[in-house]
């Protein structure tokens, strides 16, 4: 299945992408996607369990992904 990954701020800078598509086996979880991202160039700077959101709602490492999901990997927030 294909999942769209959104990256922001320092994560986007390090991986060189703000949005990309990754292929994962059906039934994959967030942690599987993060492992895939950490194996990409620049991906080692991602923490093993970063803050994530699926389709714009906060999710956990064991959340199951579905075809077409938008997975956002969220650096420490710093609004205000």
């Amino acid at each position, binding site marked *: 299945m294909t999942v769209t990954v*959104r990256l*922001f*701020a*320092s994560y986007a*800078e390090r991986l060189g992408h703000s949005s990309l598509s990754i292929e994962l086996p059906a039934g994959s979880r967030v942690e599987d996607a993060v492992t895939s991202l950490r194996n990409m160039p620049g991906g080692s700077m991602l923490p093993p369990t970063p803050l994530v*959101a699926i389709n*714009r*709602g906060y999710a956990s490492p064991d959340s199951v992904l579905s075809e077409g999901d938008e997975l*956002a990997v*969220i*650096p*420490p*927030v*710093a*609004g*205000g």
Partner: protein
Amino acid sequence: MRAAIVHEPIDPAALIAEVAHESNGATSVFLGTVRSDNDGKDVAGIEYSAYDEMAGTEMVAILEETRSAFAVEHAVVEHRVGTLAIGDISIAVVVATPHRAASLSAVQYIVEEVKGRAPIWKLEHYVDGTRGWVGAGSREATR
């Protein structure tokens, strides 16, 4: 009740007018502004970015929580993104209620929750030419 990520300068007077209602006897305002120093470094400006769609959704959720917790009916929050200079307003929270206690408490709640939950980031640019992403309690220096 309204929450928005904005790209243009924030107009506090317009926000105060937006929450005005004859039933309200108290209006509380919080303005966050870009300051010239952070942790001993001279700041030239801040570049704010956001996961716009989710940040908006999260701020709306925070306003709904505020409605439940403090019986607030008139509140607005705007967070600006883009390149801001020293003194520019980055966030404005305005709450109007019948009595002051609710508006003061609600403003503090909204500010703290937005800072802690809304997916918004800031890249500080320093006078010495360096830059750094600011996170929750940490700064990641880059050049």
